């Protein structure tokens, strides 16, 4: 026989009440938080005010043109016929060409700096890339205008002639080098150089954060350095690559002075990007604002509003992609 233990009924306990947990901030805490919050709100306020200012300024143009403002390609404010369709198309085209040159180069440069460069070279390369990002765009503009363009003409001609079976690659006078100047292709290449350092910087930063443990795990399995990069660094840095590309695209779309210096403005859809003549929103605003007034100026503000919204969306998307990833949690772009 075993002894039976009777359950002891515990005395009923009061239902737990939730406590409010409070931390009483000190005076200096409060001053600091207020100051920081004010600074943060100020940036939002400035952004909001810019958007509002553009919207109000653009209203006369938007009223007079309606949806036509987005679909019209001509820019004839005197004839009350103007829109940003061609400008927007040119902007995107230049952005795409910029990415075509900037993506492979920035990816390669970022991988080299973070994975291959000897330690002695690494630091100077990082500084150099950061310096490249700090060079004013106008310097790139004159360099592109007087040096890069001249050297790219033969490249453009070669590509155009050899890929002439693609209808959009052709130009009207293939034999004359001047047919290839001031084109969307040339402007895109130059803008690509401008956005290159920013993209390299973001990608390198993310690559360098790939965990040592995983890197060593791959190497200990007998991976080559490239094998390790493919198995660890690139998957880890994927969001950084995408974020860097989108950040570069955002900058490329807004690039003004380089495009302004290079292109010969045209108000038609650029169907032959290797042929002279294209346009872009930012360059158009820069070239026209001093001579515009009334509804024409409102039109420029409207174009600015579209560009503002466009880049805002792209940069926000880039930020979301990067911060949602494992690699981007601690990366700022």
């Amino acid at each position, binding site marked *: 026989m075993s002894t039976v233990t009777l359950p002891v009924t515990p005395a009923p306990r009061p239902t737990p009440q939730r406590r409010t947990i409070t931390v009483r901030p000190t005076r200096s805490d409060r001053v600091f938080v207020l100051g920081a919050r004010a600074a943060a709100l100020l940036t939002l306020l400035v952004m909001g005010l810019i958007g509002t200012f553009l919207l109000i300024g653009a209203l006369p143009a938007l009223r007079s043109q309606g949806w036509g403002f987005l679909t019209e390609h001509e820019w004839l404010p005197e004839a009350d016929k103007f829109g940003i369709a061609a400008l927007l198309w040119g902007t995107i085209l230049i952005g795409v060409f910029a990415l075509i040159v900037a993506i492979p180069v920035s990816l390669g440069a970022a991988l080299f700096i973070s994975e291959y460069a000897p330690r002695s070279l690494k630091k100077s390369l990082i500084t150099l890339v950061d310096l490249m990002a700090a060079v004013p765009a106008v310097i790139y503009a004159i360099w592109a205008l007087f040096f890069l363009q001249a050297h790219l003409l033969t490249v453009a001609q070669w590509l155009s002639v050899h890929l002439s079976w693609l209808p959009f690659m052709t130009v009207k006078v293939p034999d004359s080098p001047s047919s290839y100047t001031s084109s969307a292709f040339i402007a895109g290449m130059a803008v690509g150089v401008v956005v290159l350092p920013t993209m390299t910087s973001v990608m390198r930063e993310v690559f360098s954060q790939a965990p040592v*443990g995983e890197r060593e*795990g791959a*190497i*200990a*399995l007998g991976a*080559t350095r490239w094998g390790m990069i493919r198995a660890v660094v690139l998957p*880890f840095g994927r969001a950084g690559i995408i974020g860097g590309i989108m950040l570069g695209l955002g900058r490329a779309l807004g690039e003004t002075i380089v495009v302004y210096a290079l292109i010969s403005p045209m108000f038609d859809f650029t169907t032959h990007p290797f042929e002279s003549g294209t346009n872009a929103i930012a360059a158009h605003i820069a070239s026209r604002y001093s001579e515009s007034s009334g509804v024409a100026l409102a039109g420029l503000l409207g174009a600015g509003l579209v560009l503002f919204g466009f880049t805002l969306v792209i940069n926000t998307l880039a930020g979301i992609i990067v911060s949602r990833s494992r690699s981007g949690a601690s990366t700022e772009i």
Partner: protein
Amino acid sequence: MTLDAISPTDSTQVLPVSRERGPAGLVAEAVSAWFGDHQVLSDVDLRMEAGHVTALIGPSGCGKSTFLRILNRMHELVPGAALAGQVLLDGEDIYDPARRPIESRRRIGMVFQKANPFPTMSVYDNVLAGLKLTGRKAPAKGGADDLVEHSLRSAGLWDEVKARLGTPGSSLSGGQQQRLCIARALAVRPDVLLMDEPCSALDPTSTRRVEETIRAIAGEVTVVIVTHNMQQAQRVSDRCAFFLAAEGTPGHIVEQGLTTDVFERPRDERTADYVNGRFG
């Protein structure tokens, strides 16, 4: 293989991984190591017998991990690292200039203190990662599945993950991740498996599973394990080497031999003090 070491919870027997040759022994001859100007190891000779488990014990900072990393050429990845001496795998120096480091690392696998599965890869792909990374194809159709199963069984993880081979490696618990890393290392059929404090971040149950795994694979693979846990060294190892770095001097081996001798009949007083927990 020691049959009594097979986990009683395993419903099936550990399947031997087929290989062309038996495990190879590893011999360190007059190994010294430096980080910059700082010497961390001095004149270490150690024979790690084929198919046996050798434990490296000693207080922190005595160069055990450095020594372990020298055994598969991971040491040289640290900037400023240098070494002297030879490491012979089946009689051939792995530091021979004619040999590529990746060849040595393919034959001498490593499990780290912190489990490091590839987090974005599935459990299945993690096991096969070594083959892919070294450009080798898994055995033809169905062979890959078999290899994954064999490796996971050898690591004592199969029963826990067989229903979720497609989930990411990072979704497993810490102990499971460590055994996944062991499976990953075994899948490339190494001759030697180096383990750097593989249980230091694990709970007792996971530790027991890893220890069972080590006993189960010994015989198939030569195991060298760094551990701070004296009981663990006694439980898993056949032979044992006690490292010590007296103040300001580089680490060296004070005593080595059969584990039972080192723990029960130490020749050196310092060994006796250390294995009985009187210092370190």
